[in-house]
């Protein structure tokens, strides 16, 4: 629990120089299943997360049928899901709410964060800082093996009586306190996932602080590492309050305490037999204390990836590298004191709402600076439009839309109208779907050669990108109009309302956009598996990049580097005048 079990070294324990590759072959289960190697764990996290991203996406596609064609039976699949969930092939409202809650939870906690932090963080960070592994390899393994049962429990909760959690991914009490047992499973799964994240974040911080290669000072770190460091601090300090809140909600549900339940509740005509005296808003404070920094946990690693890909494909140093670093640090810091803008409509007093409104506006400034730095990095470049670069480029306008539409939501007066409408859905999906997930796809295409020694197919990659890019905008852009029309979120049947009927045509557009987006993932899946065997073989540095991970073999063996890497210069020395190549890697001694 407290003392890390880190008998990492062979008997003598003090070794600095690593002695190349393993002398003894480990048995299969130690090498690929219960492995302590950061690369294997990174890939385990990455693949698990990709599976959950597609699973969470599938849940959403089911919901989109109900939204586009409310009350009509879903062809083929409707029958398969059983009579409780879809009586006569028509979705039940309870099932719709389960899908909604689980879509949010799975995408955020089982998809994006594990891919961005567990996957890319684990695989890339030690390589980029020239470390042989993470600081605590066994702790790293433990982190994954705590995470996975959490995921299994989360998904298995669909089979409980009453189904999975159905109180939204935010699980606001009292609704969640009185919900069916699926909610308890949700809470226990969250405790496991949070614990796993905490173990991971400790590992990341120690690794980045202690294990950097010789010459790799903080101002020589790739931007991705800076982003991961800030992310790790967010996870470390913001997650425990949600763990505490989960414990309190578990107590409310199992021990019948009243932390979130006030006195005098009457549920379906029956007075609730509880002591009362609690406060439902307490949960919201603790939840959003995590969940707002969580937004930056999602976006910062993606920004890091985009920075790497942009520098590599514009063949010039990142514009304003230090400014970028200051911005992410400031962003991380501020993200702790803006959370209550999610609670403007709970009857907050004017002083506190004004305070949170001001901090919310302040936090938009570093985002503007980051975007400016990225776009100025394009200026004067020699831009290669490889597949990772296409995804990274698309990240910029998508993130811009997501950021701009945050303005009306962060301002209290306009939030009165837009709060909890589809405008909110559009806003944060622009940040996390075509924003973060595109950034993560850029990472998959960019580092796949490092992980497998083979490149992904560019034609399939470009097909994947273009169809996804067009489809995803057909999904999220109409949501702003639905939100402006006043349509509430989380409605099983929006056509109940006159203003919902006014924008129902858009729901059909959105749903078809979603299904097209699903089709667009087929080339990616084919590409991902086919390239394992058939992709073009690559050497250490297929992208002519400058950062340390490209000094290791592709794929890197145990211990990562053949010789201990030494760093000689800044991370993005591209197109240095007077050099024969347009890239001067950090690890090359000659200028």
């Amino acid at each position, binding site marked *: 629990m407290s003392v890390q079990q880190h008998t990492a070294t062979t008997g003598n324990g003090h070794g600095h120089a690593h002695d190349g590759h393993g002398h003894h072959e480990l048995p299969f289960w130690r090498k690929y299943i219960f492995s302590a190697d950061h690369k294997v764990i990174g890939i385990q996290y990455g693949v698990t997360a990709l599976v959950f991203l597609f699973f969470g996406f599938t849940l959403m596609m089911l919901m989109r049928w109900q939204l586009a064609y409310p009350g009509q039976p879903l062809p083929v699949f409707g029958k398969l899901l059983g009579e409780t969930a879809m009586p006569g092939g028509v979705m039940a409202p309870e099932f719709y709410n389960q899908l909604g809650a689980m879509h949010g939870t799975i995408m955020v906690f089982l998809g994006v964060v594990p891919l961005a932090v567990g996957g890319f963080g684990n695989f890339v960070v030690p390589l980029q800082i020239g470390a042989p592994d993470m600081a605590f390899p066994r702790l790293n393994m433990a982190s994954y093996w705590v995470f996975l049962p959490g995921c299994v429990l989360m998904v298995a909760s669909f089979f409980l009586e009453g189904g999975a959690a159905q109180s939204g991914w935010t699980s606001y009490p009292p609704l969640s306190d009185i919900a069916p047992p699926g909610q308890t499973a949700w809470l226990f799964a969250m405790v496991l996932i949070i614990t796993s994240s905490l173990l991971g974040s400790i590992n990341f911080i120690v690794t980045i602080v202690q294990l950097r290669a010789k010459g790799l000072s903080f101002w020589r770190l790739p931007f991705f590492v800076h982003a991961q460091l800030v992310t790790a601090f967010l996870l470390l300090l913001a997650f425990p309050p949600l763990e505490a809140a989960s414990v309190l909600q578990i107590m409310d549900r199992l021990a019948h305490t009243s932390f979130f339940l006030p006195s005098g509740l009457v549920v379906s005509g029956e007075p609730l037999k509880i002591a009362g005296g609690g406060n439902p808003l307490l949960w919201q404070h603790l939840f959003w204390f995590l969940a707002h920094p969580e937004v930056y946990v999602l976006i910062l690693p993606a920004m890091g990836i985009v920075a790497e890909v942009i520098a590599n494909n514009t063949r010039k140093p990142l514009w304003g590298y230090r400014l970028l670093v200051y911005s992410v640090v400031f962003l991380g810091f501020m993200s702790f004191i803006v959370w209550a803008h999610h609670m403007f409509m709970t009857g907050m007093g004017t002083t506190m709402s004004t305070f949170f409104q001001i901090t919310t506006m302040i936090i938009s400034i570093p985002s503007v600076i980051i975007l400016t730095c990225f776009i100025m990095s394009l200026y004067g470049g020699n831009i290669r439009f490889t597949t990772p670069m296409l995804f990274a480029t698309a990240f910029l306008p998508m993130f811009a839309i997501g950021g701009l539409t945050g303005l009306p939501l962060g301002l209290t007066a306009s939030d*009165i109208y837009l709060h909890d409408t589809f405008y909110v859905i559009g806003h944060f999906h622009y940040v996390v779907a075509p924003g973060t997930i595109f950034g993560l796809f850029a990472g998959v295409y960019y580092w796949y050669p490092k992980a497998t020694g083979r490149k992904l197919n560019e034609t399939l990659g470009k097909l994947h990108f273009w169809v996804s890019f067009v489809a995803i905008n057909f999904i999220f852009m109409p949501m702003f109009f639905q939100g402006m029309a006043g349509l509430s979120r989380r409605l099983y049947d929006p056509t109940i309302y006159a203003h919902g009927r*006014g924008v129902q045509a858009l729901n059909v557009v959105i749903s078809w956009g979603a299904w097209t987006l699903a089709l667009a993932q087929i080339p990616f899946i084919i590409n991902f598996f086919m390239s394992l065997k058939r992709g073009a073989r690559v050497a250490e540095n297929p992208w002519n990049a400058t950062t340390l991970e490209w000094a290791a073999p592709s794929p890197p063996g145990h211990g990562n580097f053949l010789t201990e890497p030494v760093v000689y210069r800044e991370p993005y020395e591209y197109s240095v005048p007077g050099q024969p190549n347009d890239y001067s890697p950090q690890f090359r001694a000659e200028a």
Partner: protein
Amino acid sequence: MDEKIYGWWLPPDVSVHGAKIDQLMSVLHWFMALLFIGWGIFFLYCLIRFRARPGHAALYTPVKAIATKYIEGFVLVVEIFLLFGLSTPVWLAYKNNVPDSAKALHVRLVAEQFAWNFQYPGKDGKFGKTDASFISADNPVGLDPEDAAGKDDLITVNNLHIPVGQPVMVDISSKDVIHSFNIPVLRVKQDTIPGQMIPVWFEATQPGHFELACAQLCGLGHYRMRGDVLIDTPEDFAKWQAENAPPPQEAPAAAAPEEKK
């Protein structure tokens, strides 16, 4: 209900305070569009002008971009203006300049899964005492049968009648979970928090038949937690109140002082 008034943008505004919110929304969206289009043009220019091609090379030295500082400065100034010039004053005015309580129509709302229960004070202008222990199928707000002030109280379900031109103050609460009281055309939204009574106010400017929606997930019936908002002329409203007033009864006990948070 007139369906044609609902399109792909803001529905009509029939409230006194809503115009300022709409103005803020319009300024905001023009600003956002301007910024995005200007930024997008520069973005596309960069992508085309600096694409890789034979004979083209990247610039190592960073460009001195004074313009970006001006643009960032401009964004900052506009944000400060939006914050302190538009949003905060509108919010503070709405939250603090509550209309004179004596002139307003007072209504209480007790939300439940999945209905809106309104309590009108009736002729005496006093709400009858309520308590959770009295709640039953035909007493949805838990009106104390012993309380004289409650004898003339009018209870409606999913039906909010209000007059034009008179401020309405609704004290909202919930008996089970969190709901959110949302009338798009009146630009009103307020979460109903169980255990708390939170006041909201609005004043309608024209009569009509509109909708009340629940904006916060409250369970499987969240989607159908719909109410009708009927804005009447003052005369029609008075008539409605008179017609629906409960029949007078003997009032046995004196009214206990009202409990307020």
